[in-house]
């Protein structure tokens, strides 16, 4: 059950795509039933995460990135959300692969926390304010592992130490409100690691933090991920962060993956106009040295489309500088462009 992470599944292997597949999402459909109609929040997402690999899901508000994460964890309420289609094939620690979409809730409960853990933007909303943090970590440990409370408490202290909390044993009795935002996020990470998950889903874990603290948490996640050869899905709106942490990136737009490739490829040679546009409007790229000073930010004109009744054709076409007549009638599919890159654009080869 403890399944110590084999250090052999190191970064380069995962990045090169030869490590065993941990999670394969195929044509995922998550809909919300609302008064205004059925919202296709996730509309055919494909995603592969290998052991020891970090895959970033990038997109703006409403792109479906968080809903994808929550769908994998099956954390969405039956009303109004529906897992309307697709497969989530997950390989657990024991090597058995099962489709999480069809797994009974009782067995899903063992997966959640025990196999796949999730951390969120706001740790205060995930931590219980009336219990000391130590107890919350202990609870996570005893739920999934066969450890007594005393041993679990020692394990909790070890975990806190591992996530960089000084004097861990003493801090076990602290309440969440006594900690800073960065410390709370460290505690959340400790809770997530309590049962030695093989996959961590991190949903904007640093968005609410100051930049210097963000850098600390990113460094921590990177270290933990490498040490444990854990798979990670890192959800973010910030392409700069993707560069810091991910091996591969899937860019989401209006509930669909529009581009998928290794991080360096996407940043250097995007093959979807939306990715290109996202790069062109990111203010950090000047300061990060990726583009020269004085370059104007180019906003993306228009708005994200209506997900209740999406128009035919490419969803990005109304905002796209490259759009031709065909883009409004033909629906593009995610197709390979080059050796290790995929794009959902009819004119992917023309994107520069």
């Amino acid at each position: 059950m403890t399944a110590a992470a084999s250090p052999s599944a190191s970064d380069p292997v995962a990045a090169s795509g030869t490590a065993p597949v941990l999670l394969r999402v195929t044509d995922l459909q998550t809909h919300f039933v609302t008064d205004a109609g059925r919202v296709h929040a996730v509309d055919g997402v494909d995603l592969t995460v290998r052991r020891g690999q970090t895959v970033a899901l990038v997109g703006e508000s409403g792109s479906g990135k968080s809903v994808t994460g929550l769908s994998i964890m099956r954390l969405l309420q039956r009303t109004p959300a529906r897992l309307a289609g697709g497969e989530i094939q997950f390989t657990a620690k024991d090597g058995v692969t099962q489709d999480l979409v069809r797994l009974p809730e009782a067995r899903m409960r063992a997966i959640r926390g025990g196999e796949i853990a999730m951390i969120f933007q706001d740790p205060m909303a995930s931590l219980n304010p009336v219990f000391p943090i130590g107890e919350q970590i202990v609870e996570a440990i005893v739920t999934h592992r066969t450890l007594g409370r005393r041993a679990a408490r020692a394990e909790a202290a070890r975990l806190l130490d591992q996530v960089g909390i000084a004097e861990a044993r003493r801090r076990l009795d602290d309440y969440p409100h006594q900690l800073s935002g960065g410390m709370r996020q460290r505690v959340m990470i400790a809770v997530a690691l309590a049962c030695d998950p093989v996959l961590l889903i991190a949903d904007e874990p640093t968005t609410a933090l100051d930049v210097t603290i963000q850098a600390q948490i990113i460094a921590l996640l990177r270290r933990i991920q490498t040490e444990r050869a854990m798979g990670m899905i890192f959800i973010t709106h910030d392409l700069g962060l993707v560069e810091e942490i991910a091996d591969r990136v899937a860019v989401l737009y209006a509930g669909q993956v529009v581009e998928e490739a290794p991080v360096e490829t996407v940043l250097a040679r995007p093959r979807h106009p939306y990715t290109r546009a996202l790069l062109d409007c990111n203010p950090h790229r000047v300061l990060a040295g990726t583009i020269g000073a004085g370059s104007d930010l180019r906003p993306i004109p228009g708005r994200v489309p209506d997900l209740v009744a999406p128009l035919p054709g490419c969803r990005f076409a109304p905002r796209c500088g490259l759009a031709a007549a065909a883009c409004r009638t033909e629906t593009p599919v995610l197709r390979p462009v080059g050796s290790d890159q995929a794009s959902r654009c009819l004119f992917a080869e023309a994107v520069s």
Partner: protein
Amino acid sequence: MTSRPLVEVEGVGRRFPIRPGLFGRAGAHVHAVQDVSFVLATGAVLGVVGESGSGKSTLGRLVLRLLPSSTGRIRFDGTDLTTAGPDSLRRFRRHAQMVFQDPYSSLNPRMRVGAALAEAMRVHGLANRATARDRVADLLESVGLKPDHRDRLPRAFSGGQRQRVAIARALAVEPRLIVADEPVSALDVSIQAEILNLLKGLQERLSLTMLFISHDLAVVELIADRVLVLYLGRVMELGPTAQVLRMPRHPYTRALIDAVPGRRRADGSRARPLAGEIPSPIAPPSGCVFRTRCPFAQPACAETVPPLTEVAPGHAKACLRDDLMLEDGRQAA
């Protein structure tokens, strides 16, 4: 940029009581902003950067006199605001406006946008019922909205559009000074770029003077001529934007730049993240407030508060160490 200063801030500070005095003892205070000085020339944009708790929002409120200062002086167009009476403050308010991070909470949800804009004009006697309609239409167009948007309620707008309304609202009284407190922080990147470009365009066209508060150095770089770096209520560095960001002279500024996601040093390596967290303002470190996290701190740093000293014309730093090489060799293209 013209030479005449519109705003002069001199040794401004603000403390807040945190515990009332008990049994005749003095109560405890927290210094949110301490000893901040700068001048803002007409038409200039000063970026104020710092992390949570650095005092940047408090500073914005002090400049607008939404909050009285505990120490120091603030002059607007030559008038001392710290001693100004209600009449001259009222005149000042027409000339100084604020744009907040969250437009939804700064717009009246039950008031149509046109009415909200017209009200601002009427309060300051800038339009009557007849002229207001045209002026509202012009104003909406100047922020990239349509004249018929005037009949909508704030909730009918997207986040970016709402921020446009908030900007129109600030411009309605033809101010000379705008304090923008994190105006793009809550927006998606694509919308962020739109609003930044809009603010930049308006600032240039109307020669607005602006205090632009942000936690994001990259955003400040795009809009500000000069940057003020705050940490725990004190100025760490102040200077022309390009100089401060390309050749920082304070270790904290260096650390902020290094923390920008995706940034690599000249040799391609990642900078080590700054250790620790911002200390409690209730018990700030002695001497230099940054020393507890500073990789270059020496014993002397605990003894004296480093004065803000000029290192180049218009570029000053508050650091005792003059021997640091903080450039990483990367120059902008």
